[in-house]
């Protein structure tokens, strides 16, 4: 090789050696440093959005689902920027951007402009959780400094249906009310992040599908059909009686499953932000009221159970009044001598107080507790209260009389309906619940509700009392208006004066009318309470609540395909069958 060749080879070899040395420096000595730098440039950590579990009714109808939306944000500095690294940018006036955005999103242009003119901020929300159509309009404008972040939005396809049961979430999808709150940890799950590879242009290189994070699905005990029937009739009753508020609870008396629960006033779940506190209240479990005559079953059932009375025991109610502890309590009108059955049927205060006096305060208190009053029912919805019940040592001289007829005690509608379920099902106090099952996204059963019940009355006495309650909706009873076509109804009316806390006496013009009962009385399928607060034009439970019970029951029994009691008696059936050929 010539000398020149040697020189050339030497130079090339040195150059290669330099390259190899540099590579060794990068790849061996500072491997970790440069690897981290490279990763930082072409990988991006993304938070995987958590999809809340779906809430279904007992028939599998969707009550709460997720929608994929986009939230629009702005970088005010970027919006107003006129040049980038010396290069002039396409002029963009914040005033014009604000007008365009407000038109596309339906928001206030002034509010948007105020955000666009904010100094020293690089991130401000313009509008959260925008639907696809509106988001696309903003995308198409290709505005500088306006960005999008995909977000999931909770959507309630049935609007206000069962709003107090289902509840709602906040903007961060955390449960705030109802089932959404109570079962938040099931419906949601831990957020995770994933690393995505991106090229220099920002295009994503997929390394396979990103995993989906989804909470557990919840199946409720309520039935959309029954809930609709309840709400429709409750709305009609509210319009008719112009009540300040109202509640209906329908329950399976054997299992404690809540089949429907509605309160008025109510709100739209998709617009919960605009609802005031009055509308948000789940009065079925949070509002305590004096139950009035619907509470008389406690004294009655206790007397039967303790043997201090029989259905044929007689009580002289002819005076029309009775004095207990210095207070005179009267009946609506004089009844004369009534049997135990008639006392309940006619809802005589005098007769019931005499039954209560026969029991004594200790036993009365014991049975009040047995029926579940003075404590929470344990229903799986947030916000339940235990009601008001004083210990017997704190009772005044008139308390035994007042409590026997449903005064001096505070109950929730749910507590009352549960007590009547115990009469309906033969003496078992059930635990009400609204969640039937919880399933993982892939369908595995995580939780299944099992009926829980505790015996509080003998079956014999419960069935005896059930028969007595049938009389309330029959001729001579206080709630003939609650009688259902084709099926016997057992129940009780209640008309209670509202205690005026300011005047410290019972109001003379503000009442709570209620009816609670079960149907068919012989083989109960539903137990239901209707409570109307401050109805106008009428006050009696039999007038304002009884017809609501009837209308709801008529439709509910049709919906549930419950046969009429008289189907075998009235001879409506004529069936001719044609034998199949060849048989």
């Amino acid at each position, binding site marked *: 090789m010539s000398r020149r060749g040697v020189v050339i080879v030497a130079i090339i070899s040195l150059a290669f050696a330099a390259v190899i040395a540099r590579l060794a420096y990068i790849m061996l000595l500072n491997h970790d440093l440069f690897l981290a730098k490279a990763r930082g440039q072409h990988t991006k950590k993304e938070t995987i959005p958590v999809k809340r579990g779906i809430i279904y009714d007992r028939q599998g*109808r*969707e009550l709460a*689902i*997720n*929608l*994929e939306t986009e939230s629009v944000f702005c970088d005010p500095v970027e919006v107003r920027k006129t040049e980038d690294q010396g290069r002039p940018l396409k002029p963009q006036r914040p005033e014009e951007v604000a007008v365009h955005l407000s038109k596309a999103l339906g928001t206030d242009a002034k509010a948007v402009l105020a955000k666009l003119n904010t100094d020293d901020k690089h991130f401000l929300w313009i509008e959260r959780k925008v*639907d*696809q159509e509106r988001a696309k309009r903003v995308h198409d404008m290709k505005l500088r400094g306006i960005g999008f972040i995909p977000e999931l939005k909770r*959507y309630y*396809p*049935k*609007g206000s*249906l069962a709003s107090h049961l289902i509840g709602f979430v906040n903007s961060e999808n955390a449960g705030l009310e109802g089932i959404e709150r109570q079962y938040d940890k099931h419906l949601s799950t831990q957020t995770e992040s994933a690393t995505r*590879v991106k090229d220099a242009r920002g*295009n*994503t*290189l*997929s*390394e*396979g*599908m*990103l995993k989906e994070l989804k909470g557990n699905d919840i199946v409720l005990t309520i039935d*959309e*059909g029954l809930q*609709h029937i309840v*709400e*429709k009739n409750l709305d009609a009753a509210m319009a008719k009686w112009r009540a300040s508020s109202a509640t209906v609870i329908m329950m399976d008396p054997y299992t404690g499953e809540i089949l429907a629960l509605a309160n008025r006033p109510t709100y739209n779940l998709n617009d919960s932000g605009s609802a005031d506190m009055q509308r948000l209240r789940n009065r079925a479990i949070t509002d305590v009221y004096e139950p009035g005559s619907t509470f008389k079953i406690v004294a009655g059932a206790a007397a039967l159970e303790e043997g201090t009375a029989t259905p044929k025991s007689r009580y002289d109610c002819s005076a029309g009044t009775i004095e207990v502890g210095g207070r005179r309590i009267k009946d609506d009108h004089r009844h004369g001598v009534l049997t135990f059955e008639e006392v309940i049927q006619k809802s005589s205060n005098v007769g019931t107080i005499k039954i209560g006096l026969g029991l004594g305060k200790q036993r009365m208190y014991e049975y009040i507790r047995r029926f579940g009053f003075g404590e929470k029912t344990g229903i799986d919805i947030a916000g339940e209260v235990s009601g008001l019940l004083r210990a017997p040592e704190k009772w005044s001289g008139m308390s035994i009389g007042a409590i026997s007829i449903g005064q001096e005690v505070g109950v929730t509608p749910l507590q009352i309906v549960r007590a009547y379920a115990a009469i309906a099902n033969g003496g078992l106090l059930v635990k009400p619940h609204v969640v039937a099952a919880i399933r993982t996204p892939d369908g595995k059963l995580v939780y299944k509700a099992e009926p829980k019940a505790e015996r509080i009355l003998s079956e014999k006495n419960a069935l005896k009392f059930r028969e007595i309650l049938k009389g309330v909706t029959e001729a001579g009873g206080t709630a003939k208006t609650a009688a259902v*076509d*084709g099926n016997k109804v057992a129940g009780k009316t209640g008309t209670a004066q509202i205690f005026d806390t300011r005047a410290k006496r019972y109001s003379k013009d503000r009442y709570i009318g209620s009816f609670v009962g079960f149907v068919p009385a012989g083989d109960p399928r539903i137990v239901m309470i209707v409570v109307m607060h401050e109805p106008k034009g009428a006050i009696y439970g039999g007038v304002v609540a009884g017809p609501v019970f009837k209308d709801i029951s*008529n*439709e509910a*029994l*049709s919906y549930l395909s419950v*046969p*009429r009691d008289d*189907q*075998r008696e*009235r*001879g*409506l*059936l*004529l*069936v*001719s*069958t*044609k*034998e*199949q050929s060849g*048989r």
Partner: protein
Amino acid sequence: MRRRRGSRLVPVGRIAMIVALVLLVFSVVWIRSSVVSLEYQLSSLEIKKKELMREAKTLGAQRAGLVTLKRLETVASADGGLMFPDRMKVVYVKNQRDRGAMTAAFVPADSGPRVVRE
């Protein structure tokens, strides 16, 4: 002769080795670029899938809103002239499917329930 043959074979072997090496390098590069290209395709398909899923969810939400019993009842009564069944007019028919086709009709109240077979 042997040395001549050997000297001819050596460059052929070397060339073959170099070609094989180059092919190997190219095949590695080609495979890698194919993977990257597939990743791009997969990514765009993922985006498409996401969009379709989003659309499906929106349509599902619309469907769920349209089939609420409240709306169905409103449509059925307003447009179809239908009404909630009167329980007193419901006729109960025995479920005897194994016996073939059945017909039912009202009979006088005093005649009691009957089953007539033809």
